[in-house]
């Protein structure tokens, strides 16, 4: 093997990794071959720092997600709530905050509002830093013609097979009205669209 700088070692020197856990940047899909189990986030140490107005909004939103009526929400709803509240965490980040629970726990374990706040705070403290240009840069890779568009079908495959795989319905909802008559998507416009809400 040729002597070459370790890409991982070199990584921090370059663009800041959007994901916080720099320790394991390997994009391990589902059964990750045991990425060194990230130490669970100590939520008790997180200082919650929201204004009363915010707290009220959050509580209300939180309440909206309670489908049982015990003023709690399931683990698998946490990501959804955070996103509803304007954050853009990856599934992995959320799982990490939850202490990497099993699929069963995700569906069955519940958390109340007070338990939720430090989680939200953690995410708010380290937001998804990727910018418009980063996304555009990433999607440009799939621009075979070099004309600023990508095939809708290709994008579907990318989003459904790479990274944190998305479902067909999610992708459908995402791409509604984005494809032109040839099935192409102007990816700059697309990214703008996604970032508009």
């Amino acid at each position, binding site marked *: 093997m040729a002597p*070459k700088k370790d890409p991982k070692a070199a990584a921090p020197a370059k663009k800041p990794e959007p994901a916080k856990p720099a320790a394991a940047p390997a994009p*391990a899909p589902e059964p990750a071959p045991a990425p060194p189990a990230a130490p669970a986030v100590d939520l008790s140490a997180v200082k919650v720092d929201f204004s009363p107005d915010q707290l009220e909004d959050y509580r209300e939103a939180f309440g909206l997600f309670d489908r049982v009526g015990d003023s709690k929400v399931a683990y698998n709803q946490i990501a959804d709530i955070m996103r509803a509240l304007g954050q853009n965490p990856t599934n992995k980040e959320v799982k990490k905050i939850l202490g990497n629970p099993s699929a069963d726990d995700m569906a069955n374990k519940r958390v109340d509002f007070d338990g939720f706040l430090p989680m939200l705070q953690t995410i708010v403290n380290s937001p998804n830093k*990727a910018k418009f240009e980063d996304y555009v840069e990433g*999607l440009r890779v799939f621009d075979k013609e070099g004309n600023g568009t990508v095939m809708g079908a290709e994008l579907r495959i990318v989003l459904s097979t790479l990274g944190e795989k998305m479902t067909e319905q999610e992708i459908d909802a995402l791409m509604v009205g984005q494809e032109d008559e040839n099935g192409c998507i102007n990816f700059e416009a697309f990214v703008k669209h996604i970032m508009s809400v």
Partner: protein
Amino acid sequence: MSKTADRDNSGKYLFGESDFKNSGLAQTDWAAKKQVWIPSEKEGFEVVSIKEETGDDVLVELDNGSQKTIRKDEIQKVNPPKFSKVEDMAALTFLNEASVLHNLKERYFSGLIYTYSGLFCVVVNPYKMLPIYSEKIIEMYKGKKRHEVPPHIYSITDNAYRNMMQEHDDQSILCTGESGAGKTENTKKVIQYLAVVASSHKSKKDAVSGELEKQLLQANPILEAFGNAKTIKNDNSSRFGKFIRLNFDITGYLVGATIDTYLLEKSRCVRQAKVERSFHIFYYVVAGAKDKMREELLLEGFNSYSFLSAGHVQVPGTEDDEMFTETLGAMEVLGFIEDERIGMLKVVSTVLQLGNIEFKKDKNQEQATIPDNTAAQKVCHLQGINVTDFTRAILTPRIKVGREVVQKAQTKEQADFAIEALAKTMYDRLFRWILTRVNKVLDKSKRQSVSFIGILDIAGFEIFEDNSFEQLCINYTNEKLQQLFNHTMFVLEQEEYKREGIEWNFIDFGLDLQPCIDLIERQNNPPGILSLLDEQCWFPKATDVSFVDKLLNTHSSHCKFTKPKQHKEKTMFSVLHYAGKVDYNATGWLTKNMDPLNDNVTALLSNSSSAFIQDLWKDTDHVVGLEQMTKMSESSVASSSKSKKGMFRTVGQLYKESLGKLMTTLHHTTPNFVRCIIPNHEKRAGKMEAHLVLEQLRCNGVLEGIRICRQGFPNRVVFQEFRQRYEILAAGAIPKGFMDGKQASTVMIKHLDLDPNLYRIGQSKIFFRTGVLAQLEEERDLKLTVIIIAFQGRAQGFLSRKAFSKRQQQLTAMKVIQRNCAAYLKLKNWQWWRLFTKVKPLLQVTRQEEEMSQKEEELQKAKELAQKSETQLKEITDKHAKLLEERDKLQEKLQAEAEMFAEAEEIRVRLEAKKQELEEVLHEMETRLEEEEEHAQNFQQEKRNMEQQLKSMISDLEGLNCYR
């Protein structure tokens, strides 16, 4: 099959199925799993993923989930999916055995049998017919550059041809490989292609052209009939090497061809292994010759020939008697006359018959006798020689001992040996004669040939259990060919580097092979193996063992020479060829090298009554005669040996010489290398035995070529592609707007912070050391995944917020409904409210709305009505206007008519007046006419009266006269 379907189908075997390289799907696994190859018993190599690395050991997980620890230097890197089924394996970023094997396998299973590996074109025998050799495909490859079309032997051929035309360089195409790998088939395809391409230059006006190509293609069946045989590995195995030289004139038109052959395995006509056959022609003749010809050739049944030890072994799919007719047909095309054909077949029959001559040991003497000379008689009849002379020549030949000539009785062993040697040489000479004859036909054109394409079809490197003199010859050949390849590659690489302006001292790897070649062919100081062998052949009392001893003494310190330790036999020695160590067994080498022959018999044959036989044996000077043989066994020092020495040549010498000639020819050409691979020994389609293929890749120099490749910068990416694919790694490094490819790539590479020794920037592309691209691929993958995940987070946020805002709206709506419901419940039982609800409908006010809407409706209706009327009115007005217009037009017309009428009236009046006038005139005329008529009547009357008067007067006068 329809034509379009045919084409579609062939596409599958050339281009492969859909493009998988860039699909996101393939990308995922590779980067995530850290896959590597580890050696495997069954598959050659298998893919595993790395779990843990500790020092020199690596813990890996196999496909079936089990784990295994393996040494670090045993693993080989897996190439990124971008390189899946690459057409040129030199492009692989991890150039290792496992990847090469994997790529070949993948392609083979997809029906893609041709693959490039740098300069090589590797072809795996598909063991089935593929639709990739049609006229259409030939058209497709015509004039295309190598990289423009999928790998194919046609592409190699076409490029060689174009090169020859443009550069006026002679070309050669070198096909090597194991038996059954498809060398001969590919050689045929080359000729087929050239026959089509090179004759289309000048249209059909030249009738000869068609003939030459036909003859060229028909020469093959003849050579195959005499030179091919069925072996375990191959039903139609060429038992000789050949070099076909196709000559072209200045316009690229095929003008002739010559064929050289090497190392015919002549021992095959004497004995064959089980289930193998002797040369095809023996079976063709015995099965196919009928009636008169059968008698003339004195043929017998299959089972009565001891040289056809297994009787009539059939070749699946072909009928020997049909092939016989075909072979005769081919001879006719090539202009073999009747005498020649019969002469050839007689020799074939003779060779068979020779095997039936049996010798017995005389009861009390060592001397051999022939109890039954029927077979000998047949032989002599066929060869046109005297039977007595023949038996004497065999049993008691005249031999020169010292200065005297004596008759020496032969033992049974000696006689048997002599007969076999005779049979072999006879067949060998026949084969050479055919070749000369064929060449005479193919090379008769008077037109000037300016360049040629040579096609070499020769066995590849051989490592058997037991390796003999033949293997040494063939391996020596391959050693030379590999040197040629290495040298060519060196030259080409050098040129490319120079073209791209890259500083790099490339080592000439051709030199790597020189020690081994020297070991074999060196004349002296110290003499090589072949020279030593020759030397031993002149040495009295020399044996195979003394030869090996001599070898050991001379070369014990040579780096390519060893003595195998595991073998106790004294005739063993080993040579370290580039393809691996080969243990040679020198048993019988002295005899093999001298190839001695009973010169008494050859003298007889050269004086045969048949002109054909005479011709066959005309130059017998070089034969190693009996006296040399005698010398070997007798102790007396042969005094005449020195004078005789120059007269004959050893097999080794002859071979070295012909190989030398071949190499000189090849060195003056631009070589193209084709490597044929046999995928399995069962002749089965779709099966690839990993170890078998690996062994061949090693032997045929593909792996060697790769080794050399790795020393330089084997991966080359043009700027454009480099930028497109890896710009993501240097985001922001390249400013917006235009930047030329080289500059952009330079900036990018600087940004990537690569060790400068890992790449070179040329004029049009970047050169990388092996493995660097994989690293870039991996980084690109990681980076891409990070971005995609971030984007997915963003997208999920988008979706959640959308859903949330919808939910919030729903919430607001729900609140409104709730408020109303609550209000209603509160009021429901309040009396005043109830009253209100009762009264409300009765109140005028409450009805106002209703009325309003009623009125509104009415209004609407009225409006509609009005609108309708209005439109009607408008319609009518329009009509009116139109009518008025019409009326005006009519009036005008009327006036015009009236005027015309008045005019006409006037004319009429005038005409009336005129008429009156004329009538009057008429009247007048009539009256005048009447008057005139009256006048006329009067005059008539008068005239009559006058006539009467006259008459009376005449009569009067007459009367008067009478009176007179």
